């Protein structure tokens, strides 16, 4: 085998890897979008910038504290699975948190952090860190979305919709008072 054949073979392997990584990112999320159940999560948006991936709205979620799974104390960055159910308005409620995947489709892989209180220190509970922190928007739209939120922060209900299936969740929209934020910006 000459040098060129070896290089071409090595490059073919590299091409396959270069396709496999982005494809797996897509396939996992497409599966959630097609088969997943939709939930709403309340958020507070802010507008930062990523040099490579563009402008997005940073999402801060309401803190959700739960009893530590497995009985023991929670270590920082502990991986866990949150089983979700929707309330009457479709907002996600945590039914239980476990260290192993539950026997259901409606669970999300999350990270747990020990909950701290300024006065008492470690409360012994675990705080859920959702695997979402951004909603990408068009360059000019993200600061506009933040402005809309700031103007209406006191009276508005801001939430994202996510489709969740077997641990993976994909954000499908950002809503202000039930209307997609993109629609509000256009007006």
């Amino acid at each position: 085998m000459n040098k060129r054949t070896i290089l071409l073979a090595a490059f073919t392997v590299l091409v396959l890897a270069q396709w496999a990584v982005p494809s797996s990112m897509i396939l996992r999320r497409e599966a959630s979008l097609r088969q997943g159940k939709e939930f709403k999560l309340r958020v507070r948006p802010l507008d930062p910038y990523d040099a490579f991936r563009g402008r997005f709205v940073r999402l801060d979620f309401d803190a959700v504290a739960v009893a530590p799974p497995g009985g023991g104390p929670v270590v920082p960055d502990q991986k866990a699975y949150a089983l979700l159910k929707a309330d009457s308005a479709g907002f996600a409620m945590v039914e239980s948190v476990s260290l192993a995947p539950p026997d259901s489709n409606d669970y999300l892989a999350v990270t747990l952090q020990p909950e701290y209180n300024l006065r008492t220190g470690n409360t012994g509970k675990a705080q859920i860190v959702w695997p979402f922190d951004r909603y990408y928007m068009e360059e000019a739209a993200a600061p506009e979305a933040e402005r809309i939120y700031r103007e209406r922060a006191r009276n508005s209900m801001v939430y994202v919709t996510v489709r969740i299936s077997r641990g993976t969740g994909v954000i499908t929209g950002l809503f202000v008072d039930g209307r997609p934020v993109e629609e509000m910006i256009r007006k």
Partner: protein
Amino acid sequence: MNRKKAISWLYGEFAGLEAAGILSAETIEQLKVHYGPVSMRSKRSIALLLFSVLGAVSIGLGIILLLAHNWNALGRPVRTVLSFTPLMAGQALVWWTLLCRSRSTPWREGSGVFLALAVGACISLISQTYHIQGDMSTFLLAWVVLGGPLVYVLNATAVALFYLAGITCWAAAVQFEHSQALLFWPLAAFLAPHIWQAFKNNPEGPRVQLLSWGLCVALPFATGFVLERTMPGLWLVVYSGLFCTLLLAGRGPFRAVRLNAFHLAGFLGVAVMTLILTYDGVWRDIGWNHYRHGAGYHAWLIWQDYAMALASLAGVIILAVQTVRRKDWLAAAAIGLPALAVLGFTASAQDVPAGIMVGAFNLYALILGAVIVVMGLQRDELITVNAGMALISMLIILRFFDADLTFTIRGLLFIVLGIGFLCANVAMVRRAATRKEAES
């Protein structure tokens, strides 16, 4: 003028010399056999290489920025196709280069850089389409791992430099996210065969030059990002060893390389570290008694920090042998920095008063500056004399800013320093002119 340029000039003169009857055709032929063919790369091919890399970088970054705009109006299927388009174009270009232009450096470097950037653009757009969680370190890691092998597939040094920048940024991102960057070492080792091959093929060549600049810029940053710092003060041993190793490498194995990055980075690093270590605060609360704990620190990584300290000192020891053999006193004086840093760290860890280390480093900075000035004078190197004087001046300036002196005294001091610089330079220029006259 380097050897290649000199031979090229000589060959250019042959026609005139033959016409004037100074050299016979036979002698010219004998001279050509003696010196061999001129293998200088033409300016045109260097320009072609430069523009191919710059063109690829511009197009690649342009695509990333275009995709970063986020074309909301386009649906998911279109965006998915768009994510893969630059990737496929890059892959096709590399495939064609391997088949048809494998000997062309501009094609190899340009197509490699373009594909490496296209990988980043592809992952970026998918992250954007599916609003995938931030985590810059995971994004950068995927990018460098998928783009890195192109260094070997195409033997592309420009890609190697991008890879080096990528892993350095990854180390920064990972530390920023309160994780650890131990993986930096295997990622960096991946480049070692490419660097070794370039050095083996042509130790004075442009590849070695570019890679040495890349290494000299990336290494000091990467060292800071990778260090876990659970042991306060160990950084000063690591950095002293690192900069001294760079200086010794620049004055040793890489001394023939033009625009010697090791020499410049090493000298600047040694000078700055020496001046930093003349401060009291650096020597406080360091060593075993002040071990750092807590959520942001990984206790077991103290072994990595120890290994880095040992590796940097080992570099100094290995290169020091050559230095002594060559009687290079400037390099020998620079070895004093890591030696004193180790002694100072050990003493501080045992609660020896910081004033002793501060005094020792002030004295060392003065000696180092004096040695550099003397070396410069002996060798008639104006730049070396000025470098030594700059070090001494900086030491004096820093100390006089610390001390509670009046503006009048500080002003006079600056004037004296300025006059000193001018006199030394005028004396050196005159000496050089006198020598030139005597020679002619």
